[in-house]
């Protein structure tokens, strides 16, 4: 298998190793299974949100601290759309619910993409290549966006209940697995496969990957990496919007500050994965999701610190993240 030899397989083992290590600590097998599925679902949602950010960084060296804004925006758009379609979410049949959730996702993605386009034009573009200013400016953009969300939807917490048919759990042996988590894993896998296909099998993907490796060389071959970058930024924003919808449904409520909260998790994920690496982001997201659920069960107060410890451990092993991107 030539294909497998090309891939560095050791990081792939991290996720199952982490899951197996947690088993004896938790003790009961059915609880472990429940937590593992929950962790994988959470990880998949985080991956959807993080993948855009890591590509944006890899391609153009732009670190977007405002990424959380698109997540919050997606979730809030979803509350409006789902709220308007109360008849469809209230009914117990699967396809009625899907008819409600799908447009919510699509509209959230469209809004996030549009705002992402504006954000790129007005906030990010004037400060290309200046890291310090980028961090300051995107942080400022995030604050402005958060306040605008408060102006539009109000500062209070809004409930975002799951549609009827997605509530409840599937019993498998003793383990209860929530239906929505299975859906989240499925959507996450679909996004991952689609992304892998675009990046690995299309010309645009080839250019993006080449741009991540060496921007100047791609430019000197006559491709406009700037235009490509805008596309990736908008797509990343749309994915963040989708992730926001999923995250809001996962938490079943949304607050304007959610963007900043999720941002922290996403940063940990992309650092673990190696800035610019999609596969690394997946591994990082799954590990963070699992870790958050295990420690949430074992020692709830340490949940966020356990993820930082995880990141510290990974950085000790591979200082550039599990899949370092060349030349940077």
């Amino acid at each position, binding site marked *: 298998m030539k294909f497998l030899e090309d891939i560095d397989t050791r990081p792939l083992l991290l996720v199952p190793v982490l899951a197996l290590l947690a088993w004896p600590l938790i003790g009961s097998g059915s609880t472990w299974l429940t937590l593992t599925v929950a962790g994988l679902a959470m990880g998949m949602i985080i991956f959807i949100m993080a993948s855009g950010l890591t590509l944006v960084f890899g391609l153009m060296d732009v*670190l977007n*601290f405002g990424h959380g804004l698109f997540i919050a925006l997606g979730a809030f758009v979803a509350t409006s759309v789902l709220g308007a379609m109360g008849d469809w979410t209230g009914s117990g049949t699967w396809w009625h619910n899907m008819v409600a959730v799908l447009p919510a996702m699509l509209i959230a993605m469209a809004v996030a993409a549009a705002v992402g386009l504006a954000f790129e034009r007005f*906030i990010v573009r*004037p*400060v290309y290549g200046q*890291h*310090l*200013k980028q*961090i*300051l*400016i995107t*942080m*400022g*953009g995030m*604050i*402005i966006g958060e*306040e*605008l969300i*408060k*102006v539009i939807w109000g*500062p209070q917490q809004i409930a975002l209940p799951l549609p009827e048919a997605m509530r409840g759990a599937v019993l498998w042996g003793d383990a209860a697995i929530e239906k929505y988590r299975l859906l989240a894993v499925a959507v996450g896998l679909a996004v991952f496969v689609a992304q892998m296909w675009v990046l690995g099998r299309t010309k645009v993907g080839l250019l993006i990957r080449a741009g991540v490796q060496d921007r100047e060389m791609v430019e000197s071959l006559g491709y406009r990496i700037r235009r490509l970058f805008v596309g990736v930024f908008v797509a990343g924003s749309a994915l963040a919007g989708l992730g926001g919808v999923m995250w809001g449904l996962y938490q079943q409520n949304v607050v304007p500050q959610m963007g*900043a*909260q999720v*941002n*922290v998790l996403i*940063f*940990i994920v992309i*650092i673990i994965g190696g*800035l610019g690496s999609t596969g690394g982001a997946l591994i990082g997201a799954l590990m963070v999701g699992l870790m958050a659920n295990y420690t949430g069960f074992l020692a709830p*107060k340490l949940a*966020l*610190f356990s*993820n*930082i410890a995880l*990141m*510290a451990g990974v*950085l000790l092993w591979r*200082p*550039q993240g599990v899949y370092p991107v060349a030349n940077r």
Partner: protein
Amino acid sequence: MLIVTLLGLAFAPFLFPGVKALSVAAKVLIFVVLVAGFDLLLGYTGIVSFAHTMFFGIGAYGIAISSNTWGPTWGALATGFALSLVLTLLLSLAIGLFSLRVRAIFFAMITLAVAAAFQTLASQLSDFTGGEDGLSFKLPELLLPSTEFSEAPFLGVSLDGRLLCYYLLFVLALGLLLSLLRIVNSPFGRVLQAIRENEFRAEAIGYRVVVYRTLSSVLSALYACVAGAMLALWLRYNGPDTSLSFEIMMDVLLIVVIGGMGTIYGAAIGAVLFLLAQSYLQDLLRLASEAASAWPVLAALLSPDRWLLWLGLLFVLSVYYFPTGVVGRLRSRAALTSLSSQARSKDVA
């Protein structure tokens, strides 16, 4: 302008009588130290830390927890202060070594994560930190407002412990600011600026970039910790919202940018301007919001609760168009006038 600020702060209790004015002045002193320490990191070394408020909080909690558990004695204050300094030192050293080893940009992200985790932890360990409610505590009697040193008020101001506390903060802030100026103008400060301008060249000349960056972040964290202790001394209260919240981090960033990055003086001037504006901007917004009540959208935009929106806009605009801040502007103008006067004297000759 700097002299006006200094004199204004020195005689604040006599110039602006009243409790509110005095507490604004004290807050200015605290923020001068906090922001000047941050400027060492952002303006001189060129790295962004979002954990500055975490160390601010550690300093404040050090004083609060020790006075709460061991009673209002000087010994308790000193122990709490020393413990918080040690904790700050260790924590900032660990964060710095971990994140600066690879890429300076990790630092911003990792500090953000650690600060968020710390804030959650502080509000959850309610037995120890008082949780969301925070801690109120007593100080040694010398610093309490009820302690009167003389019966007759001096120049219309009663000489009480509160005044003593204010001057304690004033001396501390002045000393710390001078020490920071000494640091940035020393050879060490030069190396930091060299790293900011070109990391690669600094390394090539033979300076260990990681070591210098870490030292700079540790120093800046220690200043934040002292500022936190000052805050706790003044307020006799500490909670997550007063010292750890993200809004304070935003304030610090704004003050640095408005005052001028990489100037240290900018911290003093920025803090004065910002804190004055902060008090009045909300009043102004309230007026504007009432005036605009006919248009609900505009009124919502202008409501005093949304003042962070306007601060954010101000922040973005000032990073674009005003990156050197007030002090930078004044300096370039001073340089221009001295140039033109030189040219004129040459013409005369």
